[in-house]
């Protein structure tokens, strides 16, 4: 069933792409199908209370790479969010792009591809399945952020998002590999608690993966940039679902790292920093989408903090906020999108009084906003209560630190909510609006109502949250969502937060509009990417000179180094001074001519020296008992010397000289190379592990080869294949020379004509 649902998404992607080329809306409507079906399935699953669904597809068995899915309570909750909100976002998109939208094959298809990837991620039962779909979400997010890629800023934002989440993905890969190495399984539920250094390294790497995906400080910078995407994408990927993937990962990995201190401290540090910095960011910006994005960073920070704490109550509160946040933040984004489309701006300084002109959207936004602020009678209130109880219930320093952080974070949340609602909907002249689009308003209202209904009919969310929390931490069954707790400490604190937050919010709003802050973080991220792009030429210029002599010298030097191991065996080498008294004489002639040829200034002189070397070699071959070699050598050498003189006759007669330092370098390297080769040859034969079967060759050659000249027999019979290759080489050279000659000729005819 699970695989079937994913396959339906895949089919939907193709269908949406094909239909989208004709009509944007048609593509979107078709794309809404699979998420809708999945939502219905999930609801039945919830009602039916059947056991966990499980499917597996083998891929690379030898590496443990398979697609293994199962749906437990956590996954079911996530499924409802991913597919439920997904279906509504598709409907909303038809309104967002409007009836006059240009046909587009990519948008609906990419969005549905994301939806399917996210399902795969939350259904993953093995770490590799999770990782594979994790990467899919990064790629689909990249495509969606870059939807309006004509704009350079959009392209930069897309690149930033992909690089940060992509790098995080690599950290995650490394972390998971370490974890799998320590366990024999890849199934998530079967991991043993991590221990030791490996545990610490794995914890840090996996946290890095989670923090980049869930936009935690200092990796959060991609998220505000991702607001360059169309608003439905921001609502869906960058608030309700994808950014929750990191939190989801932390939740399911929590038990594995329960005993790893760094998991808790590092996680909480990232979470608290994000909670506070995100809240401040949301208070400073004036683009409504950026306010929401920074608010998301803050809320994700709270979630990361709660899952780092990891107590049953914190896990319970974390799940509750996960649910509540998806509902209220998606609503708020959808409303912002509607405002954007109908007023033409998202700048809260230019907006105002919309409660009169957009009453339904206003209602949805207020309900969602209050839920975000943690005010009753809404789901967000109960979730926030649970969180405050969880941190107040800690002991010692932890209690102080976490309580203070959560309280300050919540005050900021209330403040930016109040600022947003007051500025956009509050008193003042109403911004002129275009006609309403019901397909945009309806999904927002529906999601906002869900937040309210969750408070009134508390049993439903209670079951969802409690089942999921118990799945992660069995002790969490002691807790539930409480609509009216009475005047207990946590409730008093909540009220205090609401009051102080509202005051701060009103004050900030009254203070008027400040210029939008510079996106320092984002710039810095881009600068580091550009930095890598800048180091690259610098480094490349140092290894890639583009100059052949340098390459050859490098290679020669490396070859010289490669002969070093031979030196170890040099002491075992015994060498006769010569085999034959004529050898030293010939050696002197050859080396002497070679040296002369090297340093002679004229071309003719060099050719003569080359000829002398060749003659010396010929004589040497004769003295060695290799007459065939001698003959061939003589022939070849003659042709080359003649060719050298004639072929290059038109060249100037003296060689160009190079500067002296470079000459010294060349000489040193060449000297080392020569010495290296000599010593290598000397020691290679020091203790041979086998000897050539000379006798056998003689015997066989006469019997079967039918020839007496052994070299000939070898060439034409024993190693005939080599000879064939040799002929091919010569023929090919001839073709190449002919081709070049033809080009030369064609050009001279052309210039003559």
């Amino acid at each position, binding site marked *: 069933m699970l695989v079937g649902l994913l396959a339906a998404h895949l089919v939907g992607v193709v269908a949406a792409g094909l239909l989208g080329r004709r009509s944007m809306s048609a593509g979107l409507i078709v794309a809404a199908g699979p998420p809708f079906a999945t939502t219905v399935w999930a609801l039945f699953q919830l009602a039916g209370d059947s056991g966990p669904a499980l499917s597996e597809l083998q891929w690379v068995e030898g590496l443990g790479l398979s697609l293994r899915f199962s749906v437990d309570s956590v996954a079911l909750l996530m499924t409802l969010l991913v597919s439920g909100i997904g279906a509504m976002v598709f409907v909303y998109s038809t309104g967002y792009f409007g009836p006059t939208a240009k046909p587009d094959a990519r948008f609906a298809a990419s969005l549905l591809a994301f939806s399917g990837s996210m399902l795969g991620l939350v259904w993953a039962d093995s770490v590799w399945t999770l990782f594979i779909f994790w990467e899919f979400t990064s790629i689909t997010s990249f495509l969606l952020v870059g939807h309006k890629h004509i704009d350079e800023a959009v392209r930069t934002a897309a690149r930033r998002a992909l690089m940060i989440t992509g790098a995080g993905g690599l950290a995650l890969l490394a972390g998971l590999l370490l974890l799998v190495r320590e366990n024999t399984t890849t199934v998530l539920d079967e991991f043993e608690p991590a221990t030791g250094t490996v545990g610490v390294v794995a914890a840090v790497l996996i946290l890095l993966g989670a923090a980049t995906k869930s936009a935690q400080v200092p990796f959060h910078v991609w998220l505000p940039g991702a607001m360059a995407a169309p608003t439905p994408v921001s609502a869906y990927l960058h608030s309700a679902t994808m950014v929750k993937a990191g939190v989801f990962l932390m939740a399911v990995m929590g038990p594995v790292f329960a005993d790893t201190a760094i998991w808790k401290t590092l996680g909480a540090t990232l979470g608290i920093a994000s909670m506070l910095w995100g809240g401040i960011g949301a208070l400073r910006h004036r683009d409504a989408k950026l306010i929401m994005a920074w608010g998301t960073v803050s809320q994700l920070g709270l979630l990361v903090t709660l899952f780092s704490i990891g107590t049953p109550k914190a896990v319970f509160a974390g799940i509750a906020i996960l649910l509540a946040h998806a509902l209220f933040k998606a609503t708020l984004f959808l409303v912002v999108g509607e405002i954007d489309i109908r007023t033409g701006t998202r700048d809260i300084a230019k907006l105002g009084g919309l409660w009169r002109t957009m009453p339904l959207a206003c209602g949805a936004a207020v309900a969602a906003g209050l839920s975000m602020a943690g005010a009753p009678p809404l789901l967000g209130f109960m979730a926030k209560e649970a969180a405050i109880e969880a941190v107040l219930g800690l002991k010692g320093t932890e209690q102080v630190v976490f309580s203070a952080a959560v309280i300050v974070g919540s005050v900021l949340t209330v403040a930016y909510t109040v600022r947003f609602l007051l500025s956009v909907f509050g008193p003042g002249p109403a911004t002129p609006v275009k006609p309403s689009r019901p397909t945009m308003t309806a999904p927002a209202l529906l999601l906002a109502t869900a937040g309210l209904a969750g408070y009134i009919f508390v049993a439903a969310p209670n079951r969802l949250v409690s089942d999921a929390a118990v799945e992660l931490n069995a002790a969490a069954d002691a807790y539930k969502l409480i609509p009216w707790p009475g005047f207990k400490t946590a409730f008093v604190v909540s009220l205090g937060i609401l009051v102080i937050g509202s005051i701060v919010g009103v004050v900030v709003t009254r203070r008027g509009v400040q210029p939008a802050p510079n996106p320092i973080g984002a710039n810095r991220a881009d600068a580091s990417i550009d930095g890598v792009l800048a180091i690259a030429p610098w480094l490349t210029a140092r290894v890639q000179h583009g100059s052949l002599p340098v390459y050859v010298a490098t290679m020669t030097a490396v070859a010289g180094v490669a002969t070093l191991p031979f030196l170890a065996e040099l002491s075992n080498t015994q060498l006769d001074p010569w085999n034959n008294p004529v050898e030293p004489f010939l050696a002197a002639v050859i080396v002497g001519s070679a040296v002369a040829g090297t340093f002679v200034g004229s071309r003719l002189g060099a050719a003569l020296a080359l000829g002398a070397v060749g003659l010396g070699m010929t004589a040497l071959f004769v003295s060695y008992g290799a007459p065939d*070699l001698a003959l061939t050598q003589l022939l070849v050498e003659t042709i080359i010397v003649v060719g*050298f003189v004639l072929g290059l006759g038109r060249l100037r007669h003296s060689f160009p000289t190079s500067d002296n330092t470079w000459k010294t370098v060349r000489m040193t390297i060449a000297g080392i190379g020569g010495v290296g080769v000599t010593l290598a040859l000397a020691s290679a034969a020091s203790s041979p592990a086998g000897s050539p079967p000379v006798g056998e060759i003689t015997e066989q050659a006469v019997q079967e080869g039918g020839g007496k000249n052994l070299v000939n027999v070898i060439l034409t019979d024993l190693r005939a294949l080599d000879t064939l290759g040799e002929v091919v080489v010569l023929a090919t050279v001839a073709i190449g020379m002919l081709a070049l000659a033809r080009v030369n000729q064609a050009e001279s005819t052309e210039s003559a004509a």
Partner: protein
Amino acid sequence: MALLLTVGGLTSTGLYLITARSLSRIILGFSLLGHAAVLSLLIAGGPPGTAPIAGKASETSNPVPQALALTAIVISFGLTLFLLALAGRQQLLSGDDLVEDDLEDGRIASGQNIETDQ
């Protein structure tokens, strides 16, 4: 020993020449290196002897490296000719047989690459 030193001498001079900028010198260098390689094959085959003709009573030299060396000589010969043709073409194009540097690498090295990466 004498032969080993010959190999060493030929290798050194050959390597020195192929690091030059003039293609004629490079060709010269490869000729010397070719000699060095052929000679090392010969040395690797063991001590010298009489020509490897079957049926002679005396100790013959090892024919296998000679066969290998022969193939190697012919292949090097072909490639040297090809290099000569290249040098000729280069001469026609640039009026000299000097090996030119890669333009794109030069451009990057001189820092002209700071243009947009989009």
